């Protein structure tokens, strides 16, 4: 087998090729803006050139003269929309700043007009010809700008209820033998998924179809219905493929209801394809953060005191917050822990989820600080983590359902060749290049949410699985098909999967890395309902059938999962006994501990994620260890990362091939986050400057010559029926710190602010 499809270890599924591989490489996969529309009109957005103030006047004369222009929509004539609350306050929106409502401007690049024309080109030309007069006010851009307001996150954000604490931090820190205090900064970042933030809307009478890349079709459907003031049953969201999301498509953006409203008024389908730079301001982003870490330890390396204070930027009206202290206060054994998160309100768009929202910035701080502590202690950084490894989280003492952190460190260290590292900084080089080795822990909470599914099995084994999940590139089609095939004992080729459509049974948001665990658990449950019906048809009594459920597989292709016993059921015989040719089952699955209203919320497009530290008697995380080789040029100070090695344990690996892609992409993203990605803010006017893919740097192939992914075998029976921990957001967490730790090793210079640029190096 190849590296891409390595031999599965214990508790891993088969590395079958992607269900949608051929469609994707042949260009047959249809994304939202590929969907055919009947005589569409084209929309082009105009966005504000100021971040704060008001629009005095539009001069539309020149624009209106462009041939093919149908309408120009501004706040003066926009369709009236209802407000939607923030997703974290029981709504669907990623921002409560609703454009085209008034002349007020609340952030850079806010939508201020929509041109509708017979062609994309005409709409774009007319948009360019619109002249806007503003009265600009001075905006507060970020942390250090005058005019911001700061308050603790606790009390403002319903998803961040508590600053975790335990013991007496102050006293323990005072008394600690070894102390470290350090501050860390992370930058603004944007997801930049390949697929632009396109939206097409078509009405058929009172019914609306929306084609839009979404990570949550039920959320979008309900949110748009709410904004339009119509019944959610009248709205359908379709997106069989999503060209990357990374969190940017998790909550509703204002554009969708606007386009739907205009389409209704013009009685014509409308297709919107915004530009790349507009994507920087019409959707969410990862806001910049600041951290102060205090660590106290005994000489032998045991942590006795840990404090993590974080500050995050949000918009004026919305208290978005990632609050990663919920993870960093629980990662290592430490009896005295304190933490505080605050939110700084500025004249910015509301930030939102971006791949591993809390863990990326907060673990950068903690895992860098641990490396600094290891240096102070003159201790190997892996050993420091081993000494503080724990089976129970320190805040409330709950046990981890499983935790393979140190096993990951050991495997990755071996594969990387950590033993060849000479610990002194600046002690390794190769010609013009100083070499540094660094490592860090990575982790991500294991989360699940209620999900439904419908499965139809035919006498000949053909199977159809329906579930409103999302293929954001992770392999959702593939693992859902594998789950059904294994559970029903039918060949994989006979399984057809339908996802990405809000007419299908509801699935949760494709976020928080919950999708595989949630959707596959639902599919598994519904497959079992079918099995049960078949078994009952051939078993003499119900109790026998119940017993057989666990032990009897279905032929003709009993798989390891389904065929726990040695007896198997003949599919055709069972169908004939029932006297039918098709069986169809629908079911709703919810994780243990899900609140009573979970299913209702699921149908209403609201997410009730369960897991991580918020479980009742235990805490569930996936873990990993990441090792990097960094090279710093003595003359140019250019920083390159020729080698990334990560070892990960995440419960059952459903498909080692798609999992590897996720983890590899995560490692590369992590490197990119450490060395390349930052959205530059012009602080004078709170505007983004490098809002395009030429200037917002992401790695090219030459930047990632070597990436190695190791998946450890791990069995966890306490998390969900499939036993899988989400891993989509696992690998890009530790890399930031690993790279800075390696840069320290290469140069002797500790860098605490991301991304690291060549001008930050002094050697």
């Amino acid at each position: 087998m190849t590296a891409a499809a390595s031999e599965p270890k214990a508790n891993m599924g088969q590395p079958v090729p992607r269900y949608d591989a051929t469609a994707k490489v042949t260009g047959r996969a249809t994304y939202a803006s590929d969907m055919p529309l009947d005589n569409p009109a084209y929309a082009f957005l105009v966005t504000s050139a100021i971040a704060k103030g008001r629009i005095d006047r539009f001069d539309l004369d020149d624009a209106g003269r462009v041939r093919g222009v149908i309408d120009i929509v501004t706040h003066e004539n926009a369709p009236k929309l209802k407000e939607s609350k923030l997703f974290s306050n029981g709504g669907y929106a990623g921002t409560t700043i609703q454009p085209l409502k008034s002349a007020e401007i609340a952030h850079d690049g806010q939508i201020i007009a929509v041109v509708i024309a017979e062609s994309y080109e005409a709409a774009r030309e007319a948009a360019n010809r619109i002249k806007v007069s503003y009265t600009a006010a001075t905006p507060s851009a970020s942390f250090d700008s005058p005019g911001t307001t700061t308050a603790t996150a606790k009390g403002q954000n319903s998803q961040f209820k508590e600053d975790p604490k335990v013991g007496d931090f102050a006293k323990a820190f005072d008394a600690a033998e070894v102390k470290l205090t350090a501050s860390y900064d992370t930058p603004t970042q944007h997801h930049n998924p390949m697929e632009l933030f396109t939206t097409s809307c078509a009405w058929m009478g009172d019914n609306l179809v929306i084609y839009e890349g979404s990570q949550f079709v039920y959320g979008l459907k309900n949110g748009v219905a709410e904004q339009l003031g119509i019944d959610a049953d009248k709205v359908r969201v379709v997106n069989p493929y999503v060209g990357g999301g990374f969190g940017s498509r998790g909550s509703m953006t204002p554009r969708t209801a606007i386009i739907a409203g205009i389409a209704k008024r013009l009685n014509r389908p409308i297709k919107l394809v915004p530009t790349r730079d507009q994507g920087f301001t019409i959707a969410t982003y990862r806001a910049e953060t600041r951290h102060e870490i205090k660590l106290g330890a005994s000489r032998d390396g045991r942590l006795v005191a840990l404090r993590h204070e974080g500050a995050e930027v949000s918009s004026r009206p919305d208290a978005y917050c990632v609050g990663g202290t919920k993870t960093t206060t629980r990662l290592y054994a430490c009896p005295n822990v304190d933490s505080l998160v605050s939110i700084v309100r500025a004249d910015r768009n509301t930030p939102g989820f971006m791949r591993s929202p809390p863990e990326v910035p907060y673990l950068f701080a903690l895992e860098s600080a641990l490396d600094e502590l290891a240096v102070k202690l003159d201790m190997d950084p892996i050993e420091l983590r081993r000494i503080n490894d724990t089976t129970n989280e320190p805040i409330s003492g709950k046990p981890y359902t499983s935790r393979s952190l140190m096993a990951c460190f050991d495997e990755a260290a071996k594969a990387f060749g950590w033993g060849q590292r000479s610990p002194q900084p600046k002690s390794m080089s190769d010609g013009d290049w100083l070499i540094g080795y660094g490592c860090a822990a990575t982790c991500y909470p294991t989360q699940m949410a209620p999900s439904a599914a419908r499965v139809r099995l035919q006498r000949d084994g053909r199977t159809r699985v329906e579930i409103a999940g999302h293929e954001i590139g992770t392999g959702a089609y593939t693992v859902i098909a594998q789950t059904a095939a294994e559970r029903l004992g039918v060949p994989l080729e006979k399984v057809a999967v339908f996802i990405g459509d809000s007419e299908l049974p509801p699935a949760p948001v494709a976020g928080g890395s919950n999708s595989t665990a949630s959707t596959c658990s639902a599919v598994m449950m519904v497959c079992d309902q079918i099995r049960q019906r078949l078994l009952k048809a051939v078993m003499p009594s119900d109790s026998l059938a119940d017993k057989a459920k666990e032990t009897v597989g279905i032929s003709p292709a009993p798989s390891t999962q389904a065929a726990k016993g040695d007896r198997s059921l003949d599919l055709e015989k069972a169908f004939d006994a029932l006297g039918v040719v098709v069986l169809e089952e629908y079911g709703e699955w919810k994780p243990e501990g899900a609140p009573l209203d979970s299913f209702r919320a699921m149908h209403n497009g609201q997410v009730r994620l369960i897991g991580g530290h918020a479980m009742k008697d235990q805490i569930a995380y996936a873990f990993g260890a990441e090792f990097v080789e960094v090279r710093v040029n003595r003359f140019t100070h250019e920083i390159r990362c020729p080698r990334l090695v990560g070892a990960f344990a995440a419960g059952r690996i459903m498909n080692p091939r798609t999992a590897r892609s996720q983890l590899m992409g995560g490692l590369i993203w992590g490197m990119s986050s450490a060395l390349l990605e930052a959205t530059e803010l012009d602080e004078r006017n709170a505007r983004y400057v490098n809002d395009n893919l030429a200037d917002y740097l992401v790695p090219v192939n030459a930047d990632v010559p070597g990436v190695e992914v190791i998946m450890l075998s791990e069995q966890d029976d306490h998390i969900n029926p499939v036993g899988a921990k989400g891993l989509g957001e696992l690998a890009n967490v530790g890399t930031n710190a690993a790279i800075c730790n390696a840069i320290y090793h290469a140069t002797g210079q500790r860098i605490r602010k991301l991304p690291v640029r060549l001008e930050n190096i002094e050697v």
Partner: protein
Amino acid sequence: MRSFSYQRATDPDMAVQALGAAAASNNPLTKATAQPLAGGTTLIDLMKLDVMRPAAIVDINPLAHAWSAIEPGGDALRLGALAKMSDVAAHAEIQRSYPVIADSLKLAASAQLRNMATLGGNVMQRTRCNYFRDVSYENCNKRNPGSGCAAMDGVNRMHAVLGTSDQCIATYPGDFAQALIALDATVEITGKAGTRSMPFAQLHKAPGSTPDIETALQPGELISGFSIRGRWPRSVYLKARDRQSYEFALSSAAIALDVQDGTIRDARVALGGVATVPWRAREAEALLREQKFDEALAQRVADAAFADARGRRHNSFKIALGKRVVARALQQAVTMEI
């Protein structure tokens, strides 16, 4: 992007005429109502961004048969304006006799862009200043003469430290031009009155008080080719950048040396990524002539090259970086095997 007319020029006269018709308006070349189209990788990009708004496009690609020579004959080199970056970079004789040219092209942009882009278009590429490229910023003296310069006190990490004025600090972003200016290239210009030549060093204009005037070309004039005398096998192009490929220079150096018996007879030093125009460091390179090379000399040359440099808030690092790049590139040129 705005509507425009499109015309294919099948011979040079036709091209010059089509472009010349627009010349009457008295606009500087950058704002001329008719623009020649070569690979289009700069022009179409800027049209989409609404930065350039020509009413007419004159496609000069049909002239390729006459204007895409790559002729490294004996003791001189001729390059046609429509030669593709990738073809020149891959040419074995260019790699042997003019490594600074081959490398400046090979290290530029991406393979896809190099396959499209031409040498003429390359030297005419325009600055990557974000405030220039985003028309929602009003203050850009280059785009909107007299409106001010948003970059001066804005985000200016990529901006120039040499050749700046109080009107504009935009970097000339290209790589190849540094090789041309280092090798004393001549540029051939075809216009209404036929063909004229001038030193390549005179093609680009420092911003001064007219940053909208970027070159000595007049509307209606086209670059038809470049020529270089001599062979320069001992030459290097060193480029420091944020990522390993597909990225503009933060600082680069084009170095060409003639070393005989350990003594430097002739030396050329040009700088990229740090100046408003392709930059020849004449005073610095003069320090090398008739000298034996050592590290201290390299340091003096590097210091001299940046003696007049002036940094702003985010780009001051380019001065120290530029010096190290020059010193390292000199070292590489001296020690390279030819």
